[in-house]
């Protein structure tokens, strides 16, 4: 009898070797062919059952099924969420924590403005939007990173690289663009590149050196490109461009969290250890205020040139 078993986690020669060894000398398996994401079996059903083949594969920590693995579409996901809200507890916190950090930063900045910068002419015109976008960037990146670190999971090379790359790129793009607009290309590129690379490394290292490299490359690219966008577009409707730019970046970060849940967490035995709000808020506030200090007192800032 012939059958196909779908195994989507076959990634490398070691996976193939491991599977080959588990099938070899198993009574009832006449032959098998390991393909990219499925295995073709020819077996004697009097000696081994189809389900036993699945068990052998699962025992080696691979997902296995007679039907192809399909990801949930949008309506299936919404239905699953409504019926299984307890499975999304950490994800629900992303929105409340993001808003919490955004508002905390805003309140602190308003207090700071009223005590230190109220009398400086055109301060709001020059910094208002950029501080607003800085808050958005910091809260979105912080909570994306928080979500990632909330799970102690094992990452495949592919997912780990995607994680490192997206975190590195988006951090660089968002912060690079904000700092580029207030302090020019050098400071924007430096801040975006260094922070993008840093976040790229700490997230990408989940799958080893491949993820680290991917995170670093994305950090360099995102940081330099982000600030370049602001500098080059400064005299050409930059403030009209920014809302679209930020919304797209937020969607990408949201997509990353969605992917993380779908690929790494869902239906898997993953340890959950989310950090509390206070810790993530303190880290975000420190990061935001260091960047604010650079924005306001750094080279080429409006205040320095004023």
């Amino acid at each position: 009898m012939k059958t196909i078993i779908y195994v989507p986690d076959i990634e490398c020669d070691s996976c193939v070797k491991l599977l080959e060894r588990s099938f070899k000398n198993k009574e009832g398996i006449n032959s098998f062919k390991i393909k990219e994401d499925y295995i073709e079996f020819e077996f004697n059903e009097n000696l081994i059952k189809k389900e036993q083949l699945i068990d052998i594969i699962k025992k080696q920590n691979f997902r296995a099924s007679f039907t192809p693995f399909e990801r949930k579409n949008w309506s299936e996901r919404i239905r699953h969420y409504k019926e299984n809200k307890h499975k999304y507890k950490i994800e629900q916190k992303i929105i409340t924590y993001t808003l919490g950090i955004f508002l905390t930063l805003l309140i602190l900045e308003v207090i700071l403005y009223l005590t230190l910068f109220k009398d400086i002419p055109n301060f709001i015109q020059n910094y208002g939007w950029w501080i607003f976008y800085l808050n958005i960037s910091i809260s979105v990146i912080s909570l994306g990173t928080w979500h990632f670190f909330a799970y102690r999971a094992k990452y495949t090379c592919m997912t780990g690289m995607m994680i490192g790359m997206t975190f590195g790129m988006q951090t660089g793009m968002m912060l690079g663009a904000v700092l580029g607009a207030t302090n020019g290309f050098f400071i924007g590129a430096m801040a975006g590149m260094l922070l993008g690379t840093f976040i790229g490394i700490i997230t990408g290292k989940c799958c080893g050196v491949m993820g680290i490299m991917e995170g670093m490359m994305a950090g360099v690219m995102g940081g330099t490109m982000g600030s370049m966008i602001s500098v080059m577009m400064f005299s050409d409707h930059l403030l009209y461009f920014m809302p679209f730019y930020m919304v797209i970046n937020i969607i990408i970060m949201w997509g990353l969290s969605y992917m993380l849940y779908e690929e790494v967490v869902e239906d898997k035995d993953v340890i959950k250890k989310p950090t509390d709000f206070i810790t993530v808020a303190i880290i975000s506030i420190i990061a935001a205020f260091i960047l604010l200090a650079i924005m306001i007192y750094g080279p080429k800032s409006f205040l320095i040139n004023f």
Partner: protein
Amino acid sequence: MKQIIIKIKGMHCKSCETLIKDSLEELEDVKVLDISGKKGLATIEYNESLTSLSKIKDIIKQEGYKI
């Protein structure tokens, strides 16, 4: 029983870890207590009177990994 930590080069995924673990545990009285591809380390417990360290190393090398 003796416990050792061996540095293994070339592991890059979960399958590499399982591959080495399974091969070593085929030896009599050898147990892989911990193996991490990320750290490149394996903690192995074995009975000195039944298995030698060189035998363990040979098996890891046979699997295509460096020590």
